[in-house]
């Protein structure tokens, strides 16, 4: 379970969100500039709130009142952004292995193979990031994030470069793997179909505030109607 209460400010943008995510798969939905990426960066520990706290399964990751600030690599939290940010001087396999220093070489190699297989990127292992397409790079970035066995996976528009069919297939495999490994996922998106398709718990953000929190069918009802309306409108 992930619970947090966060106050942050960047220029004139004031972010204040207080929430508890009990679901395995929570979608943060909102327009650009609503604060989705801000929230994910705060949860990952890459940015620090002015005040507030974050607890994952009862363990305090951030607590400004008592000065707790667990560094990013020690929060059992992974983040995959829209920009894959693969290390350009390392192969795909070396990228996936980067967070596995605590494993011996054979165990590391097995884990890398397992993760690349999960995202359907086994054949990309020896390639360098500059030789990967956007979608391939996103899949390798996902494998890299999953490799260290996080407890919390943060995804920021992670499949934006994948085509619909590949994205759907990967989503099914990923959700199955996350359930098996008891990993909680928080996914930021501005695409309502992602949220509706996964029947997720949805946090609706607007201008740095929580607008609604609940099942996708309820929270995104108006968004769903809008999308259906667009589909039923005959082309001109």
């Amino acid at each position, binding site marked *: 379970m992930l619970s947090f209460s966060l106050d942050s400010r960047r220029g004139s943008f004031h972010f204040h969100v207080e929430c508890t995510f009990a679901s395995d798969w929570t979608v943060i939905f909102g327009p650009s500039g609503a604060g989705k990426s801000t929230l994910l960066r705060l949860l990952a520990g890459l940015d620090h709130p002015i005040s507030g706290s974050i607890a994952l399964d009862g363990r305090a990751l951030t607590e400004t009142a008592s000065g707790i600030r667990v560094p990013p*690599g020690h929060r059992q939290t992974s983040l995959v952004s829209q920009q894959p940010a693969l290390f350009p001087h390392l192969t795909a396999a070396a990228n996936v292995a980067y967070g596995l220093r605590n494993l011996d070489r054979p165990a590391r190699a097995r884990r890398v193979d397992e993760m690349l297989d999960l995202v359907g990127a086994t054949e990309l292992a020896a390639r360098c990031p500059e030789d990967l397409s956007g979608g391939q790079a996103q899949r390798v970035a996902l494998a890299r994030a999953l490799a260290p066995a996080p407890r919390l996976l943060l995804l920021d528009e992670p499949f934006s470069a994948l085509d619909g069919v590949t994205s759907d297939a990967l989503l099914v495999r990923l959700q199955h793997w996350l359930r098996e490994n008891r990993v909680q996922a928080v996914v930021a998106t501005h695409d309502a179909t992602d949220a509706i398709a996964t029947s997720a718990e949805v946090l609706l953000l607007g201008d740095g505030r929580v607008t609604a929190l609940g099942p996708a069918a309820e929270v995104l009802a108006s968004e769903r109607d809008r999308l259906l309306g667009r589909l039923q409108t005959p082309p001109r």
Partner: protein
Amino acid sequence: MDWQAFALSLRLALVTTAILLAIAVPLSALIVLGRGRWLAAVEALATLPMVLPPTVLGFFLLVLLGPRTAFGRGVAAVLGHPLAFSFSGLVVGSVIYSLPFAVQPLVAGFGSVDTALVDAARLLGAGPVRLVSSILIPLARRSLLAAIVLSFLHTIGEFGVVLMLGGDIPGATRTLSIVLYDQVESFDYATAGHTALLLLGLSALALVAVYATSQKRGSVRSA
């Protein structure tokens, strides 16, 4: 040709460059990755020797490391000899004088590494040492090379600080630049020409080495 001075200049440049790298790499990483306004003061302090006239810096160091100050006396007591007018003193002066030439390229190189890559490495558990050694240095290797070459050449050609702090002691503080000065002062222009050519050759060789290793041959340059 004063080969003793040549060897001393090379030794001074190599030692200075090695010490500078050990200081400049972590310092530049701190300037780029750290947070806080005090880092601007650190960067300004590291750049200061660039704008100070070498003779002024040499004079300050001469006074600081000499017997007039408690610091100078303390150092002399520890080492058994004063730092001024010794090879060790020259190294101290050269390191301070060439510090900006090592720090500036590294700050520029480290600063050009995409912050998303730094974030990704931190999320994967990289501490500061691993972040620098496995991400910043490989991605900014041209800047590292530039820092090495600039530090080396700057030390080889150093004159003001060396003269002020080290004087002209053969085998201890007489570098090629000092030899060149002595040769010109005694109107021995022919030998001075050879010394100057040697210094020029060293500089050119180092620069060719940098360009040869840092550019992809045959690549098309965009405007």
